[in-house]
């Protein structure tokens, strides 16, 4: 931005700030953040967005702007670090770059940097960062090979950093995620050797001791995760706590979705059962079957393209638009005759499938 443009933008920025001082609405915060973005002041954009999100948590546009500005700042730093590494590589730069890429969700690149770092000076931390990157990938793809590699990388990191507890913590996380409770107990006992008397570790050891009796081996647990696509932690998170409030049921949410303008059908599926609102009889059955098949085929394609687990599939055509939000246990879909779904409909659908709601699947409505 030129000097004159910057000079001219000052009064505009001042007036937006004054408007915000008079009325601290989300709209005014957004206007101020956008004004900073126009000036290329990304740190200010982040600060304004964070302040606004503390007052208006979950505001879609502010969240998006914050994510975008963080990504841009991260990309700038990534470029600078890559350039510095090309000129004069040193462990600190490798570490910062790998950690930055991991925080940005660029797992493959983070792993590449960790491999390069390990080849450069054989440091244990490089192996640990590679293990962390691969673990993130395992959580998304749930492939046995990834889990095994994380285990191997943790072993290598432990040998190179015998006094460091981070590889053990990662191993504990992996074993707990897949339900290999015996291995998890072993990791906790090793951690307790380094920190004897740690109350939280002792409590965890007692819990794992109770679970370890009939627990599968590490390999068997990995095989089960790959087969079912479900982690042990998913199961535990889904199990309702006895003291929790009664879970919301699916049907009212589906009815609410189906009552919207131009909505043809709202569907929720779990296992071989489907709840359909809007469409009736054979149409409902066929629509539910089509949704299930689309989810299965899209899941396979996303995996083959290396994109990870699908979060949503949107189709737009002569029939209108359909959005399907798949989950580990089920999927929700909405079909409207409009050319595209509204942001509110998208949000409602994602909330429906991600809310951990307890399905009330009655036999008369099952398609």
């Amino acid at each position: 931005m030129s000097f004159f443009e910057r000079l001219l933008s000052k009064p505009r920025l001042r007036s937006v700030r004054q408007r915000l001082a008079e009325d601290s609405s989300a709209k005014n915060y957004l206007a101020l953040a956008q004004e900073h973005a126009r000036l290329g002041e990304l740190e200010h954009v982040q600060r304004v967005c964070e302040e606004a999100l503390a007052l208006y948590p979950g505001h879609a546009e502010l969240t998006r702007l914050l994510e975008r500005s963080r990504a841009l700042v991260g990309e700038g730093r990534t470029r600078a670090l890559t350039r510095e590494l090309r000129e004069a590589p040193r462990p600190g730069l490798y570490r910062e770059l790998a950690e930055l890429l991991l925080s940005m969700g660029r797992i493959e690149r983070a792993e590449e940097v960790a491999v390069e770092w390990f080849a450069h000076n054989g440091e244990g931390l490089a192996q640990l960062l590679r293990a962390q990157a691969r673990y993130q990938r395992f959580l998304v793809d749930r492939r046995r090979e990834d889990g095994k590699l994380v285990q191997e990388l943790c072993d290598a990191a432990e040998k190179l950093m015998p006094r460091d507890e981070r590889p053990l913590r990662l191993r504990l996380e992996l074993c707990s995620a897949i339900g290999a409770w015996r291995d998890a107990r072993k990791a906790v006992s090793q951690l307790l050797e380094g920190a004897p008397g740690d109350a939280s570790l002792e409590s965890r050891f007692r819990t794992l001791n109770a679970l370890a009796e009939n627990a599968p081996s590490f390999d068997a647990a990995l095989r089960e995760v790959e087969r079912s696509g479900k982690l042990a932690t998913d199961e535990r998170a889904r199990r309702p706590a006895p003291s929790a409030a009664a879970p919301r049921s699916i049907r009212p949410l589906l009815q609410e979705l189906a009552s919207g303008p131009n909505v043809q059908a709202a569907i929720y599926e779990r296992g071989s059962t489907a709840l359909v609102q809007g469409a009736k009889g054979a149409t409902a059955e066929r629509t539910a079957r089509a949704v299930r098949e689309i989810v299965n085929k899209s899941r396979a394609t996303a995996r083959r393209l290396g994109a990870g687990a699908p979060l949503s599939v949107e189709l737009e055509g002569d029939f209108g638009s359909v959005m399907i939000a798949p989950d580990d246990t089920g999927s929700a879909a909405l079909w409207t005759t409009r050319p595209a779904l509204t942001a509110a409909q998208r949000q409602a659908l994602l909330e429906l499938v991600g809310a951990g709601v307890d399905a009330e699947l009655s036999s008369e409505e099952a398609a």
Partner: protein
Amino acid sequence: MNEVLDPLLRVPGVRCVVLGTPDGVPIASGGDLSLTVAAEPELGGGLGADAVCGLVAGWLASLGPSLGLVAWDLPQRIVLRAARNTIVVRRSPNALLIAMLDPGAQAEDLRLPMEGALARLQRVARRPRTSSPPPALPSRDSHKGPASENADNDVLPFANELPG
């Protein structure tokens, strides 16, 4: 094809763009396809434009029977949002435009640019050629047999219908 793909690559968050035929043959590609890592071991470390185009075309073809259950045509626009990328596919009768986005990028930001790219593609396809290539087959006017009946329908004659 750069004039078709370049505007898409300038949209923030777009990792790569592939233009292909509806049956999965890539025509042109841009952006960083090397970042697109294949999960399948048999596909090697990364995916090329041909693999991306082929997999997406195969996916669309496999959706056909499922959509047929509810008598829907193949969709014109498909967005597959996944954990690591978002894949946006815009389908026209004679081309597939595929864009892969970084996590966090919005597929909606690409709606108008993709429509524009397809419109530009149609314009490029309609542009008259400066020099016409030599014909691969004899001109229709040379046929005096039954194939001349098809002259108006842009259909080539079957081999057994050719005179001689």
